[in-house]
């Protein structure tokens, strides 16, 4: 954390107080760690209410203009609010594609009409947004997108399908990447970017059951779905560039996103608390020397991960590979969490063989679900294997496969 000035410090304690007063009571189900776990109306309603409440209190979209539902304040305040929400582990602000991707894109590139139409609904959680980039059978390879968008008078006709559409079954809008020119010489040049309505004929969604047994994603099918031509963002053929632009917003409020926390992270402290509670041969596991050695290894790794985010701000300490920390962040953190969560399960003894829903699980089955769900992060958005290639080639300059 940076050093707060006086008004920031006051704001920080004000946020903290509000969060502590207003955090929701235990809803009786495991809270989602990420927005990809919204698998039922019950969970959706809960999160919608919470996001609306955070926004109403003025702690979401703080740096967005007042006329579109924001507070028109400096980004520092949103950062502070986010830090406090993270620290206090309140529920997530779930409308992530809207808050973090579509919203900032519209703010940067959109017309006044578009800003008027979309932004407030993103913040107050009335309009849920989803993302339509990935397609079945093409995994991480966005250049291979097959979904077609054909201009037909004042409309585009959309045909094809998208996969891993988070909350596709609840969303009102989709940021959609589709192919307008199949003949384009370079395949990336044939793509266009749309702010597409989901409630039109010819769009249907099919929920995908996750490895956890729960829902959260859909496959989305387009069959001659007709969307207005003015849904396009930018020009035809600029889709790839705009999609890449959305990636920069991922870095959070400081990069233009509305703010709010999108991931309830499990940190080492949770694992330490678990190890303090479990007993082995009459002693807390936290006293077992082998377990301690392993826990310390993870703690060193966690510390280094946290420090990396600080070091990236000090160019003098990043000279030899300036893009290393940024390009390897996903790989480092998602693999850390995978190993850490897998390790946590190995410590649970017989209770580790139980699952979410059993009254005797440790933490309601939190670790079981967290480990399995973690694969969405080591697979989605480019698998760890692809990430390692990216780092090898773009940071170290190693040759392509």
């Amino acid at each position, binding site marked *: 954390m940076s050093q707060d000035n006086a008004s920031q410090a006051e704001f920080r304690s004000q946020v903290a107080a509000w969060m502590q007063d207003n955090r929701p009571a235990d809803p009786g189900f495991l809270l989602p760690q990420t927005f990809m776990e919204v698998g039922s109306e019950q969970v959706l309603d809960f999160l919608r209410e919470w996001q609306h409440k955070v926004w109403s209190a003025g702690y979401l979209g703080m740096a967005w203009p007042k006329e579109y539902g924001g507070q028109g304040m400096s980004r520092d305040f949103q950062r502070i609010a986010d830090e406090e929400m993270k620290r206090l582990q309140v529920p997530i602000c779930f409308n992530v594609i809207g808050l973090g991707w579509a919203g900032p894109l519209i703010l940067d590139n959109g017309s006044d009409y578009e800003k008027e139409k979309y932004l407030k609904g993103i913040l107050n959680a009335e309009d849920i947004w989803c993302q339509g980039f990935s397609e079945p059978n093409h995994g991480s*390879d966005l250049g291979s997108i097959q979904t077609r968008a054909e201009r037909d008078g004042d409309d585009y006709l959309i045909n094809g399908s998208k996969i891993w559409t988070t909350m596709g079954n609840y969303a009102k809008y989709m940021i959609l990447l589709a192919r307008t020119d199949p003949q384009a010489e370079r395949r990336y040049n044939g793509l266009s970017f749309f702010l597409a309505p989901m409630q039109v004929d010819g769009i249907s969604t099919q929920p995908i059951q996750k490895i956890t047994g729960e829902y959260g994603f859909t496959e989305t099918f387009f069959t001659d779905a007709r969307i207005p031509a003015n849904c396009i963002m930018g020009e035809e053929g600029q889709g790839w560039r705009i999609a890449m632009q959305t990636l920069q917003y991922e870095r959070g409020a400081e990069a233009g996103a509305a703010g709010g926390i999108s991931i309830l992270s499990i940190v080492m402290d949770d694992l330490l608390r678990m190890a303090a509670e479990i*007993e082995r041969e009459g002693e807390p596991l936290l006293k077992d020397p082998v377990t301690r050695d392993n826990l310390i290894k993870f703690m060193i790794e966690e510390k280094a991960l946290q420090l990396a985010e600080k070091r990236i701000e000090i160019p003098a300490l990043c000279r030899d590979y300036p893009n290393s920390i940024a390009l390897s962040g996903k790989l480092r953190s998602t693999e850390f969490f995978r190993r850490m969560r897998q390790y946590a399960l190995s410590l649970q003894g*017989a209770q*580790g063989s139980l699952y979410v829903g059993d009254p005797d699980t440790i933490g309601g089955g939190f670790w079981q679900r967290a480990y399995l769900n973690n694969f969405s992060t080591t697979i989605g958005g480019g698998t760890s294997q692809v990430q390692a290639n990216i780092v090898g080639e773009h940071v170290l300059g190693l040759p392509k496969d």
Partner: protein
Amino acid sequence: MTTSTLNGTTNIALSFSDEQAMLLDSAKSFCSHKSDINAVRSLLKSDSGHNPDVWQEMVALGWTGIAIPEQYGGFAMGLGSMVPVIESMGRHLLGTALITSTLAAQAILRGGSEAQREKWLPKIVAGTVGSMALLDNEDWGSKLCGVSTANSSSSDSSSKIVLSGKKLLVADATVADFFIVSINHSGNPALAIVEASQLTANAISANTLIDETKRAATVDFSGVTLSPDALLPQSEQALKDIRLIGALLIAAEATGTSAATLDCIVSYLTSRIQFGRLIGSYQSLKHPTVDILLQMDSSRSLIYHAATLLDKGPEIGPLEGDTEVACRMAKAQATETLLFAGDRAVQFHGGMGFTYDCDAMLYIRRAQWAQHQYGDAQHHRLHLARLLLD
């Protein structure tokens, strides 16, 4: 030949008879026919987790009698011969209570009176299901008997015994005809036989397991009244043996499942194309898959080594020395291997791997379940250190 320690020699006995080879072939074939992946999936939401017809066929094949002496109606092939059968079941995720029933039989054989053996063992051969009720906390370690589940109503040894307390994670409890329950009997650990018919209504409440091909329940034995002859006379040694045999059988099953996981990965890697290439051509997938093979090979060597030593020893004698070492090594290796294989299976399937429809899900869940049965790897390494380094 003794075990590898500071004295520098190692027991590497490994043998497998023609009879065992035939048993392995027939078990492989049976499990592959009766438990293809569709059959496995069709049972995931079922109450019992297995197909009763398949169980009856297994009984008819004699698998319930493999490790039971002839005088009790068994086939006296030795406990080691269960390993190829259980490995084959693991390879096809074939449910049924064969593991727990085998353990119940061994408990009676090793700890029971002659009368108990004569009463129960022929029934087990004939398909009666016994289940082990051992756990009263989450630790498979030394505290097993530290929590009481039984109270003698008086100190008179001929008087009735009234049980009180629950057992966690009792395997296949809903289909068990009887239970071998570890109890605290006047301050001493003991094993008692409880028939399912003696349980009170609602005594069994199913657990929700991470491995949906498995079944277990919390069983409340409170109020069950036993006569003293329900106790096994040699409980303590039997209990120790059962834990080691349980570890080995789970290791055998996990080894089969590792082989299945490997098949599942190889099949995907040789058919899925990404960026214009079969993904198995990428060394980042190919080499870890080779690691799985090598670890699976190690697991297999270790389980058949333990099987060899079990069959070399006396039919009923305690599991000690090299045999104990072998069982613990097998468990530590086999479930670590499956954890690695299951984790990689999901990852290597990419987006597909993250779905419930992908079979990798079955293997990663089995891996999580298996690591905790009869002691995890760290637990066994701790005991191995005591056996080998002190």
